[in-house]
């Protein structure tokens, strides 16, 4: 009941010019969306929403994706689990910053490095579920997160933001954007130290702190666009990876540098990019850390260290064609990925590398009917993978087809996708199988998706109802004796989702997401039902944000019960002047948020701890 009082919407109906400017900004944020309706189930976080939420890192946003739990893994990585299932494989997701894919070669995921990236440089975020990636012209993924950065045209000026919280975290963001006679640019810098509640395990303190540095630059000159970034993250080990899951040291140090060049002319885009990533992981555990030495399990008591280095070169181009009611996009790209690994495991040393080349072509065809009210789409893609080691060459195809039909206030969407997820490179090499038993014959996970959606829109509200059926096979598991292997049994999953958005006006609105999932194996590794509720209000110079995240409880497979969770967060921002704002955010106030169960131990850990954050922003 106490929550309900706080959620009472606060109305503001005024037509003074200041309010009109605020409404114009909110409405313009929506019109800037770059979303592709046919690319999957789309969930958008607009700039207005991100600002009201006082979102600081990507984690603050990704925790609100319905049907998914953005949760902590034992080694202090943030991974997704799909409702009812355990952690999703890392290759399920691809993250883009503007048009650059920040996925690593070794892990086929951006999460080992970018999982908690700062987002002050971000304009808006689009999340595509049940996707195939063809529409974005890159490698396949089931979940695509597109992060769009701010633009020099709108954000010309300077901004500084400082954040600190009651746990001792602190961070500074700065950006400068300008348009000159020659071109325009956006420069951004960030540094932070994030502290978390210290938990204890068997009398030992568990540390999950992290610190990050991000530098980002965007330069636009006529048809040329260059983006570059340097991101470094350091993370404490949390539970680590050892036998006791009680770390006595270790952690992660990872860096990603990239350069992305894009040339746009009329309907054609040509791109080139270069990525360099390093990933240093060390584990130390009270009882030691297992590793594999050419088929023999061993225990590293003193040192377990791996260093990965990725180099990725990408070349691609695509072109859009329009013939009356028929549109098509055709593209090709080439990727060369080199992953090198060095390891130290007490006295054992390992060193190896693998190069993967990927050739891909794709086409996306769209036919419109009934005065463009109905669209049929068909997307096809062919991928060829070649390796420089004795690993079988692979050819894979992706098909996606569907329909979008607009009927007065209602939109109907249906799609079918048959796709796959490329196997992570660290699972198929090195030949020596150190520190894991690798398997060069692993088959990629393949999946089929059927999705049906109806969206009803009226003047003030939008209601969406979705059903999805997914079947996947060739899931990859690891056992210390067998190494990586494909599971024979397919897993079927039914999902149901609804979203209601009610707008009192562009500045005051409510969002309610309700979702549920059921899998064919009746597995319960995570909550299978949840509700996300957000309210956004503006009252004069005050921005008020409320957030309630409910996840149901479940019985663990190996016995034991995980209680339901209800995390309430609240953010308040006061705009002292249009250039200076002071904000406060209280996260998980009642300390009753989602707790992640760890399979090897009978202990749960709160994923988003209780914290009170202060936030100062100044533009000049």
């Amino acid at each position, binding site marked *: 009941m106490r929550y309900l009082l706080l959620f009472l919407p606060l109305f503001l109906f005024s*037509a*003074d*010019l*200041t309010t*009109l*400017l605020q*409404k*114009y*900004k909110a*409405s*313009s944020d*929506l*019109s800037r969306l770059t979303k592709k309706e046919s690319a999957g189930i789309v969930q958008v976080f607009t700039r207005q929403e991100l600002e009201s939420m006082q979102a600081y890192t990507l984690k603050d946003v990704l925790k609100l994706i319905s049907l998914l739990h953005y949760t902590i893994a034992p080694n202090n990585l943030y991974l997704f689990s799909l409702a009812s299932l355990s952690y999703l494989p890392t290759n399920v997701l691809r993250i883009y910053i503007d048009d650059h894919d920040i996925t690593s070669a070794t892990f086929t995921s951006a999460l080992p490095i970018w999982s908690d990236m700062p987002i002050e440089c971000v304009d808006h975020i689009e999340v595509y579920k049940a996707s195939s990636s063809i529409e974005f012209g890159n490698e396949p993924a089931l979940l695509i997160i597109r992060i769009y950065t*701010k633009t020099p*045209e*709108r*954000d*010309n*000026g*300077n*901004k500084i933001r400082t954040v600190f919280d009651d746990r001792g975290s602190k961070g500074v963001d700065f950006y400068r954007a300008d*348009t000159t006679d020659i071109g325009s640019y956006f420069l951004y810098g960030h540094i932070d130290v994030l502290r978390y509640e210290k938990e204890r395990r068997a009398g030992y303190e568990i540390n999950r702190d992290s610190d990050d540095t991000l530098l980002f630059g965007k330069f636009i000159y006529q048809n040329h666009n260059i983006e570059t970034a340097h991101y470094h993250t350091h993370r404490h080990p949390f539970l680590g990876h050892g036998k006791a899951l009680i770390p006595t040291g270790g952690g992660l140090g990872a860096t990603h540098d990239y350069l992305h060049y894009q040339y746009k002319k009329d309907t054609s885009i040509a791109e080139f990019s270069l990525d360099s990533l390093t990933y240093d992981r060390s584990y130390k555990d009270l009882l030691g850390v297992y590793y594999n030495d050419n088929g023999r399990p061993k225990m590293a008591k003193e040192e377990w260290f791996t260093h990965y280095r990725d180099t990725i070169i990408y070349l691609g181009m695509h072109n859009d064609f329009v013939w009356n009611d028929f549109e098509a996009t055709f593209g090709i790209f080439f990727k060369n990925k080199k992953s090198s690994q060095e390891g130290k495991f007490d006295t054992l040393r390992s060193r190896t590398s693998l190069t993967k080349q990927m050739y891909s072509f794709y086409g996306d065809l769209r036919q419109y009917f009934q005065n463009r009210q109905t669209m049929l789409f068909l997307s096809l893609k062919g991928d060829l993978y070649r390796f420089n080691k004795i690993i079988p060459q692979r050819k894979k195809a992706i098909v996606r087809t569907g329909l979008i039909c607009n009927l007065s206030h209602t939109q109907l969407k249906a799609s079918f996708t048959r796709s796959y997820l490329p196997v992570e490179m660290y699972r198929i090499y090195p030949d020596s199988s150190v520190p894991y038993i690798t398997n060069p014959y692993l088959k990629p996970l393949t999946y089929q998706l059927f999705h049906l959606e109806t969206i009803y829109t009226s003047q003030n509200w939008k209601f969406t109802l979705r059903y999805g059926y997914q079947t996947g096979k060739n899931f990859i598991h690891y056992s210390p004796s067998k190494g990586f292997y494909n599971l024979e049994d397919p897993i079927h999953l039914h999902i149901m989702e609804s979203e209601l958005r009610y707008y009192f006006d*562009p500045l005051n609105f409510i969002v309610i997401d309700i979702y549920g999932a059921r899998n064919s194996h009746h597995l319960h590794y995570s909550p299978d039902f949840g509700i996300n509720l957000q309210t956004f209000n503006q009252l004069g110079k005050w921005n008020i944000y409320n957030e309630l995240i409910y996840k149901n409880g479940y019985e663990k497979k190996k016995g034991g019960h995980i209680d339901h969770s209800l995390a309430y967060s609240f953010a308040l921002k006061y705009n002292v002047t*249009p*250039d200076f704002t002071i904000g406060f955010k209280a996260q998980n106030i009642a300390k009753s948020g989602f707790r992640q169960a760890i399979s090897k131990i009978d202990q749960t850990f709160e994923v988003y701890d209780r914290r009170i954050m202060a936030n100062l922003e100044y*533009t*000049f």
Partner: protein
Amino acid sequence: MIRIFALLFTAVLLYSEETSQIQKEIYTQILTSLFPKKSVIKIWVENPRTLLVLNSIPFVHIVSKPKNADVLVIYKNSKILSPQNCNKIVLCESYKLIKKEKECITGGFFWHKGRPNIIFLEKNLHKHHLHLPKEMEQFIEDEL
């Protein structure tokens, strides 16, 4: 002509109806504050997207040549600002431009620092003998 239609069509596609509606309300308030007694305001507009918005205001009459206008709404092209045109009321849609041509431009409605801004330059308001109502005084600046 085909290019104009293409521009207008693209502008319609890119811009949501709601955004245009709010923009229209903002321009209505700006223009009625500048010309409280005028029943028809003749405007020349550079940006086709703004042209669509202004054209939907009942008391606005869009003209095709700057010399026939009461107000010029410029977007990027500073070459329009000839000495003759500087004698007219000039509104601009670029922070960069208003800063560069502050001797000539009366005011502006533009994006700056991540948000839309309205600014009137006091010196140029005086030059045109314009007096804004009290609720608009917060948008008057001495300098940029």
